[in-house]
């Protein structure tokens, strides 16, 4: 099965950090990516620009509304995602627990809708 790991965390400390500190903070993700690839579990994964760069769009009654800012105004914001291949939920939860974001934010695990 494929699962998406949605990484929610407070991204302000990262944004405020010096480039050098940002590199240090990114190191655990590099190691995590390596582990996913080595296990053959990595399908894809991306880090997103900070929530302050988000724009939301919705169309109501034929009118397009564009708003600056993320969908929900909460402290923990979607900061990135992985799509992984895992045999079952337990395996996916294991990967989620190893994700660096789980230590300071929350990782949501969602099965991908099967299309076949």
């Amino acid at each position, binding site marked *: 099965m494929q*699962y998406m790991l949605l990484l929610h965390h407070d991204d302000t400390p990262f944004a405020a950090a010096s480039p050098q500190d940002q590199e240090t903070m990114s190191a655990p993700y590099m190691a995590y990516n390596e582990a996913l690839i080595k296990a053959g579990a990595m399908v894809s994964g991306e880090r997103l620009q900070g929530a302050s760069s988000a724009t939301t769009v919705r169309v109501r009654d034929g009118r397009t509304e564009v708003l600056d800012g993320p969908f929900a105004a909460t402290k923990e914001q979607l900061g990135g995602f992985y799509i992984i291949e895992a045999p079952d*939920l337990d395996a996916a939860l294991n990967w989620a627990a190893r994700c660096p974001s789980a230590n300071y934010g929350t990782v949501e695990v969602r099965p991908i809708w099967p299309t076949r």
Partner: protein
Amino acid sequence: MATGVERARAAAEAAARQSYGRLVAYLSARTRDLAGAEDALADAFAAALSRWPETGVPDHPEAWLLTVARRRSIDQQRRRMTGEAGQAHLRLIGEELEQEMAREKFPDDRLGLIFACAHPAIEAGVRAPLILQAVLGFDAATIASAFLVSPSTMGQRLVRAKSRIKQAGIPFRIPEKAELGERLSAVLEAIYAAFSEGWTDASGAESRRRNLASEAIWLGRLVVDLLPGEPEALCLLSLMLHAEARRPARRGPSGEFVPLSEQDTLLWDAGLIGEADALLQRAGALDGIGRYQFEAAIQSAHAARRFAGRTDWAAIATLYAGLMTLSASPVVAVNHAVAVAYAGALEQGLALLDAIDDTRLNEYQPYWAARAELLTLSGNLAEADKAYQLAIGLETDLAVRRFLKRRRGDAASRSGQVSG
């Protein structure tokens, strides 16, 4: 004495139930489609319950059930398919299946199924109902009446949980050693929840709820059979058997409530107590101690009254103190305080009771009843009367209410007061 017909029915039910759970587990283990497996077996299970009491349990009950289930679905297919070729094809499939069924041995995946039902990704409140349905074949209405919720609510919760198992990919397997402890405790908790629901109905007026206690024991035995080296599983079964052994003594001849301390020990089931104590001993020889081990040991200490003639409250107080180190439950704290008081330290017991700081106790009948008893013993009859009044107001079981009223009257007459 059970008649031959009753025995045949009981044997058929037991065999059907064993087979039903195995087949649900077998059919859903790979697909994780619990609802689909249940649908496929529903008719077959009903047919077995009506036919096996007459014909006897077949040599291969699982094969029988699976054959009937497949035949029904082929019948349904047949209605959709027309033409000679289709008919012949279906007949062939049917014959092949029956041959295959007769020799196939089914792996027992029931424990994996139970672990899926009690997975942390499944809402805690629906785990016990889900196990009862998936492993024992209870319908939603029966489970709903046992758990005192509406059938439609229970039906929805079960459907939601099943689709969650399928969609989220919850595995049907026994967890690895590292997480087995935590996951097993969720399973045991669900079984204990089912038992407690059945146990609450002491009068046995609602047979569905009483059955729940025996079903929980059946599940407890199943887990012990499949995981014989897990002390907490052994101790949960021991605990349930101890409680079950006292069932005949819990009510008097006219249905009145009889508290543990006044029960006629000759009415206790010695066979069950023996089995329960043997399980506790087996667990004691294994590594690790948990809440059920303390709870089973407490029950065993109560059961020892039938030989000793008196209850060793000091030992019980020590066991509750041990249990408190594992569980912060206010209920355990109340029982500990009572045991300390009965062990001879009445004032200390009352002080412990006072020291429990938990607002949930305000609506907990046993807390007020215990308080009333201890206050009566200490001679504080005015306060005791208030506590009895609260306990009576909180109790819904009529027999227990009558008992508490009698106690309240006894206490009041000691002081010459008239209870209001």
